[in-house]
């Protein structure tokens, strides 16, 4: 069941959903975290023409773990956000392993508000292990920053398209992940807790992360079945890092199609659809109320 109630325009037919993988969830976790995998900034730099980076949250500082800016997607001015995961240790240290602090989320929100002002769509590329678990992050309101983004994105008066390209790590990912369409690369993951953390809590044994990866249902196929993501973007044989150009092209095609679908929907209708989409998420049983 697709989560997205938006119509598919005649101009584009979504590609058939990739066949269920022969890889185990744990192998998919490894692919999602592969050092050579194209990161959110790679997609941004390749897909967004004339990209201009914007800096700072205007409150505290510029968070190098989060990339935000403006540019053109095809013929459409857009605002873009994405965590900055590095490809090697040096880059990772410079960008805090793609784990934003509150000022990162606040910068993202500032740039999204800028897009809203002009009615430009927001493109969000997600690849983050988590929001940074640091003492200063807590002091500056990590939870508040994430909550604020989630709430503001639910009512942002402009289209939001989200692509989970690698790791979608919990609240830190959702803080950039509320949108009209949420797409996911074939070997990306999206989870409420990293498998290692889950194993540590459940079995007090991090080495059982593999089991946790299966239990959490964090693959694109699982999440499509749960109505959480709208489309799986196929990856080249062996994963996106085997052919980054092909992966980028697939993301471009999918984004173009979804952008077309949201562009002509009146904004009030789009916001109602966005609300209903998240409103429906969850599974429960309901008997006639006692009280």
């Amino acid at each position, binding site marked *: 069941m697709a989560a997205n109630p938006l119509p598919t325009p005649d101009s584009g037919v979504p590609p058939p959903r990739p066949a269920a993988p022969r890889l185990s969830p744990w192998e998919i976790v490894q692919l999602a975290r592969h050092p050579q995998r194209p990161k959110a900034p790679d997609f941004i730099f390749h897909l967004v023409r004339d990209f201009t980076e914007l800096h700072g949250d205007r409150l505290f500082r510029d968070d190098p773990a989060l990339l935000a800016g403006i540019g053109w997607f095809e013929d459409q001015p857009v605002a873009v956000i994405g965590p900055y995961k590095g490809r090697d240790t040096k880059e990772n240290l410079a960008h805090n392993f793609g784990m934003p602090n509150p000022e990162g989320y606040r910068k993202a929100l500032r740039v999204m508000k800028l897009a809203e002002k002009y009615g430009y769509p927001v493109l969000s590329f997600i690849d983050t292990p988590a929001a940074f678990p640091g003492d200063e*992050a807590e002091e500056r309101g990590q939870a508040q920053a994430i*909550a604020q983004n989630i*709430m503001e994105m639910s*009512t942002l008066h402009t289209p939001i398209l989200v692509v989970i390209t690698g790791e979608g790590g919990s609240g830190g990912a*959702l803080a950039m992940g509320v949108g009209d369409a949420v797409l996911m690369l074939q070997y990306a993951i999206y*989870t409420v807790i990293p498998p290692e953390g889950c194993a540590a809590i459940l079995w007090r044994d991090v080495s059982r992360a593999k089991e946790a990866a299966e239990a959490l249902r964090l693959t694109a196929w699982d999440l499509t079945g749960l109505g959480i993501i709208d489309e799986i973007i196929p990856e080249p044989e062996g994963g996106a890092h085997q052919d980054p150009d092909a992966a980028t092209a697939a993301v471009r095609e999918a984004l173009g199609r979804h952008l077309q679908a949201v562009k002509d929907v009146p904004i009030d209708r789009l916001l109602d659809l966005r609300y209903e989409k998240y409103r429906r998420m969850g*599974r429960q049983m*309901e008997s006639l109320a006692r009280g």
Partner: protein
Amino acid sequence: MSPWLRKPKYAALQRREMPGGLWAKCPRCKNLIYQKELERNLQVCPKCGYHHRLSATDRIAVTLDPGSFVEFDAGLTSVDPLGFTDYPEKLEEARRRTGRAEAAFTGMGALDGFRTIVAALDFFFMGGSMGSVVGEKVARAAERALEQRLPLIIFSASGGARMQEGALSLMQLAKTSAAVARLHAERLPYISVMCDPTTGGVTASFAFLGDVILAEPGALIGFAGRRVIEQTIGRRLPEDFQTAEFCREHGLIDMIVPRDQLRPQLSRLLRFFGAPRVALEEPA
């Protein structure tokens, strides 16, 4: 003592694993306290002021006008959407131990005569964790507040998102925050009260989105766990890290309110934000 402090008849305070049920040991000052005295004192240690955790039912009982509460959505129960190891057993155990169907208790009632929608999370039910049902109940509570143009008060006590429902739990952050956004858009008051503990996904959604944010003294409030942070930064954290007092000092919450002051404080806020009085609300 004002009349609301008396134990309401409709929801008796539970006695939790106290030796003999007569005496309770304060986890902070280690003094033995006569159970009845603790109850009279709203489960606050009369010796050191430690605020014992309240179940959701007790929270409603000590907060609302006696007899005013009507529960919503009591028939909502959790399923096991992922087929997660031991989840049905854990749910069953939590239901048996608490006598509740889920970790959220929601409804409508009156507080000092002001009609309000209330939600309380129950830390004794799987750590107050938010899965589909908790998210759904909170969202419905917000939507009822919207429909009936009433204020919303949420008492949070939660370890965060419920791991056993995977990303469905994560999506409850979006569902509840979107519902709260509608209250703000419609200029309806939403007051968040953080109780011990309020952490993880609940802080990263509705708990930090109130017009006014209150906390009980000493409550643990934070996003990431202490141990994870200590491992990440390679340092021990100070004792008061992520307490209500720490949060107020860092500008994250508005005020710390001792339990016996909570009702008058909420009443003042409801009056200020123009909450309707029960009498005016009764159908003709």
